[in-house]
């Protein structure tokens, strides 16, 4: 036994692997890069937020404008995320359970918002509802403000978070096929019963995964919302916009305090996301990101 162990220790490096030295050099290089590029900014947020003591940190949240920004961010996410969940469920049902012409094209189209710059995602709504457009003055005559108001912020947020739930569910439901649903239907369940009792339990972890990512982006969106919000203090500033305003007013500590709340949201999202991947790997695995 002892000689066997020694023999193994003295064995040459396997031909399909690298020497220990090479391995640790590559690992060290990777971790250094990730440390500088990813971990350091995260650390900096909390470091700067607490730089002037815990009192200043909490004082930042006592500001009415900060509280209004937090409320607005939660409200926007509470509208945008459920709408994209309904869309994601409908789209994945149509795409995974049926065959039709142009399906591959539709899947590509759903990913489209990912290749549009956030600023452009905001701009298109300015063109659609702003001065000089047809719709803007028309809606205004009925007292409905879209731009520089809640509806515009919600629309821009829906635009940028549009693909998240759908792109998570489509490959998952395609993997699962239609067997379970056909069994339920043949046993006399109606369409809604089949969806709620068979399909939904099958996809619940994948759905949660998509909702997590969608929500993180919805609460954190900056570029698209900056364009449509008008940045009216206390009224149309979401948390990321409030962070920017505070930062530009040289109130860095308050900016970082509010930013730390968003960073915390990002951390919670990452932890839950990883937990889902580890525990329910297969049920969220059909998605690659």
């Amino acid at each position, binding site marked *: 036994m002892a000689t066997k162990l020694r023999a193994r220790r003295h064995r040459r490096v396997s031909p399909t692997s690298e020497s220990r030295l090479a391995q640790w050099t590559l690992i060290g290089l990777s971790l250094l890069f990730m440390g500088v590029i*990813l971990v350091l900014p995260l650390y900096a947020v909390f470091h700067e937020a607490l730089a002037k003591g815990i009192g200043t940190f909490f004082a930042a949240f006592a500001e009415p404008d900060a509280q209004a920004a937090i409320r607005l961010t939660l409200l926007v996410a509470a509208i945008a995320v459920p709408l994209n969940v309904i869309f994601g469920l*409908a789209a994945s049902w149509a795409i995974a359970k049926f065959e039709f012409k142009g399906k591959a094209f539709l899947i590509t189209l759903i990913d489209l918002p990912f290749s549009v710059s956030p600023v452009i995602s905001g701009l298109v709504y300015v063109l659609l509802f702003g001065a000089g457009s047809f719709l803007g003055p028309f809606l205004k005559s009925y007292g409905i403000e879209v731009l520089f108001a809640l509806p515009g912020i919600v629309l821009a947020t829906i635009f940028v978070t549009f693909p998240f739930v759908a792109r998570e569910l489509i490959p998952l439901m395609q993997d699962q096929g239609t067997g379970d649903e056909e069994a339920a239907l043949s046993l006399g369940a109606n369409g809604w019963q089949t969806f709620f009792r068979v399909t939904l339990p099958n996809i619940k972890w994948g759905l949660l995964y998509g909702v997590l990512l969608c929500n993180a982006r919805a609460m954190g969106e900056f570029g698209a919302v900056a364009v449509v919000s008008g940045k009216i203090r206390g009224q149309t500033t979401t948390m990321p916009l409030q*962070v920017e305003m505070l930062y530009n007013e040289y109130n860095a500590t308050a900016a970082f305090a509010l930013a730390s709340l968003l960073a915390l949201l990002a951390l919670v999202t990452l932890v839950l996301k990883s937990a889902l991947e580890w525990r329910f790997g297969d049920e969220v695995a059909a998605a690659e990101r």
Partner: protein
Amino acid sequence: MSAAASALSRSRKRNVIPGFGLTLGFTLTYFSLIILIPLLALAIRSAGLGFDGFWKAATDPRVLGSLRVSFVTALIAAGVNVVFGTLIAWVLVRYRFPGRRIFDAIIDLPFALPTAVAGIALTAIYAPNGTIGALFAPFGIRIAYTPIGIVIAMIFIGLPFVVRTIQPILEEVSHEVEEASATLGATRFQTITRVILPSLTPAILTGFALAFARGVGEYGSIIFIAGNIPFVSEIAPLLIYIRLQEFNYVGATVIASVMLLISFALLFAINLIQAWSRRRYGYGD
């Protein structure tokens, strides 16, 4: 007889699952209202300018300058990300070390961290008095408020695209190919550069294109660190924003159209790469 049989088989093939009209109808309506009509509004506004008007606005020196800044910095950042992203994907897939899972999870941080937060954090680090900025300041090298800062921000937001595209492919590369290569007398270095890397090429190209496209469009994490000096460190998305603040909708529309055309061309290229790699290697999404 045969007509009846084919009619029977056709009726048997008919899908029993309900809700096709409802779900596809909702999907198309929602897509049209949220994505298609707004994008068409942009296209119609651009078309309304006519070719001469469009060309004149698109070749404005400041517009060209901002496009150059965006594309050059995004190209450099995507290049850096390809090198380190491939290395990180390799290390995460092939080696076992303490904390591997935590580092694997942290790769997705740029997806989860709001861009404005990343922007002010990077600025704090790379400003002349920041943790890393202070290391370079004595040598007269400024990172924040220069194009180097833009590249740093783009590296941050682009990294997960490269790692997450290469990782699943690397997991699929079979050990037998490497063993065969080693048995035939290849050194480990030869096996990696001549056997493994070529099979990763489509994934690396896709990751590069994704990171590049994201970098070109990025706004939030860049504007704080960039310095935003026209012709030097002013990115195209920021110029769109500035034009909108000036109520110069035509100027904003033209820059946006140019950027959209280029990113759609990129998207098309990514699809081509994936189709090609599926044909060649049997995988590649």
